[in-house]
């Protein structure tokens, strides 16, 4: 056992500055840093490689032309980009109001002692970890075939909405919980009803947190390929024009090009990945911007 070093907890730098840090300690610290580094380095390699590989195909054609599985020289990803945007809008439309309403119920109305509320709560946590392909099965069997909606924007957006609903609920609950109890008490003491307190005091304060959580959930939704593949979303050479229109989406198009053997299609897959990543990055930046701009200190 090494000689005890006099360090107060919290003085993180003191161990290294003392100069007497035993070799074992230093090795352990470096090992931990290396563990963290693996993830970071892989991320950098992955991003660099994707951009490098997609570079030859990263041009305006990607946005202006329709996909092709025969002529990679003229292939673009317009219908996939449009499909992803349509999906994003409608998924948001279904999932955000539902998720926020469920979060309000669980945080403000539900008595946690009651059995039904505990079931709802555990169910949401569990649903958040159900594999996305299972949601694909649900979408295929229930929404696409039983309800007869087919592989349309409507089916796709409903499936993705259910997939990310738990994420939206969990994020919104946290945002609501962050509003101090005193605000509610003050409002109630002035004679406001429970809903008035919610709608006029709590919700406005919780909006930034809920927006951030919802955007992050949506960015997960538009990156999903597996559930859409299950629904039979495939190769489409036209832009969607309504809820009942068939469509393709960027992740599906990336998958299809990846499975082609020609190098040029692999480059197209990489180029489409770059577009998808830029879209996700933009969404994440907006989420972080909202969080930083509107963060309230109580």
């Amino acid at each position, binding site marked *: 056992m090494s000689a*005890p070093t006099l*360090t*107060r907890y919290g003085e993180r730098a003191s161990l290294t500055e003392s100069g007497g840090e035993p070799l*074992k*300690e230093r090795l352990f*610290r470096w*090992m*931990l*840093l*290396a*563990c*963290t580094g*693996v*993830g*970071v380095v*892989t*991320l950098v390699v*992955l991003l660099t*490689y994707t951009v490098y590989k997609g570079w030859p195909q990263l041009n305006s054609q990607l946005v202006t032309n329709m996909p092709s599985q025969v002529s990679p020289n003229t292939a673009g990803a317009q219908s996939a980009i449009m499909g992803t945007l349509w999906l994003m809008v409608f998924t948001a439309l279904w999932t955000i109001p*539902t998720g926020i*309403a*469920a979060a*309000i*119920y*669980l945080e403000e*109305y*539900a008595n946690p002692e009651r059995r039904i509320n505990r079931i*709802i709560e555990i*169910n*949401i*946590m*569990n*649903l958040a970890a*159900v*594999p*996305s*392909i*299972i949601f*694909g*099965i*649900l979408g295929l*069997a229930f929404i696409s075939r039983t309800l007869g909606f087919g592989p349309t924007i409507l089916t796709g957006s409903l499936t993705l909405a259910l997939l990310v609903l*738990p994420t939206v609920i969990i994020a919104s609950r946290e945002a609501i919980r962050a509003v101090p109890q005193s605000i509610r008490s003050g409002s109630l003491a*002035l*004679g*406001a*009803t429970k*809903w008035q307190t919610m709608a006029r005091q709590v919700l406005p304060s919780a909006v930034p947190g809920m927006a951030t959580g919802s955007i992050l959930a949506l960015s*997960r939704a538009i*990156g999903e*390929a*597996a559930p859409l*593949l*299950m629904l039979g979303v495939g190769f489409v050479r036209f832009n969607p024009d309504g809820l009942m229109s068939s469509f393709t989406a960027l*992740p599906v198009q990336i998958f299809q090009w*990846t*499975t082609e053997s020609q190098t040029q299609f692999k480059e197209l897959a990489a180029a489409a*990945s770059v577009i*998808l990543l830029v879209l*996700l990055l933009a969404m994440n930046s907006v989420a972080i911007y909202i969080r930083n701009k509107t963060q309230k200190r109580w």
Partner: protein
Amino acid sequence: MTQLIDKHAAAAGTSGFLRQQRPRHGERAIQAALLAAALVAVATTVAIVIALLIPTLEFFSAVSPIEFLTGTTWTPLFEPPSFGVVPLVVGTLVITVIASIVSLPLGLGSAIYLSEYAPDRLRRTLKPTLEVLAGIPTVVYGFFALTFVTPVIQAIVPGDGLPSIFNALSAGLVMGVMIIPTVASLSEDAMTAVPNSLRQGAFALGSNKRQVSTRVVVPAALSGIAAAFILGISRAIGETMIVTIAAGLQPNLTLNPLKFMETMTAFIASTGQGDVPTGSIEYKTVFAVGMLLFIITFLMNMASIRLVRKYREVYE
């Protein structure tokens, strides 16, 4: 608003002020609507179970459950079909083990570093960077595994036709990296929840930082770390695109990670893709495998949720 205050001010003189003056139907309706929204999540679970259960039961009226669970040949789309799910389960297992070997130690190491060692500023850059890893679409990971990691593995491990273009190792490694943030962030939450008094006590007894981390903080956060591990493994079992792209779409009963193999999820995705007619045995097969996948991940998720509750009860 003023009207409201006036009304209550007027009511203040009466004895019934603290009691409800009149039933508020609007408030009731709102509460019911909010409850309905919360129940959507429950309905989703019920719908998943029903959607899986009916075709699965029909499947098992044609194929015996024993044949399904113990058979070692998986050729549901061939003539004559054979419905032994073991190759798919073993494929899933091999890739999950590889992913776990990568993600569990690295995730835990990252968590210890972030929670106990990293200076505040470094922490504030490292943590979001790791979270970006969790946000990369899985199809992009799959592309990376197939076109970057596999050639690298082929260059390092030259063999007689192995590793094949589609192999479990490449898919498992990339999946492992994908799961690091899941394991790291949940474990870190658990370690952060360990009260500082425990650390201070150990420091006071002359322990150094490594001893405090490994002998006090990690054991104290063990149930949370276990929950993180289980959730990570559950994610590996359910991950679809990486294996569909990089591990191959042919069932292969082998433990050799350099060979191609098919997982449960890859089978579901690749068979579902085609226009399988509703009610055909191929269609039902997808649901039977889906049911198995759902049960496995469901049990693991529940175990993970229980463990998280346990540490929350102890420290919060």
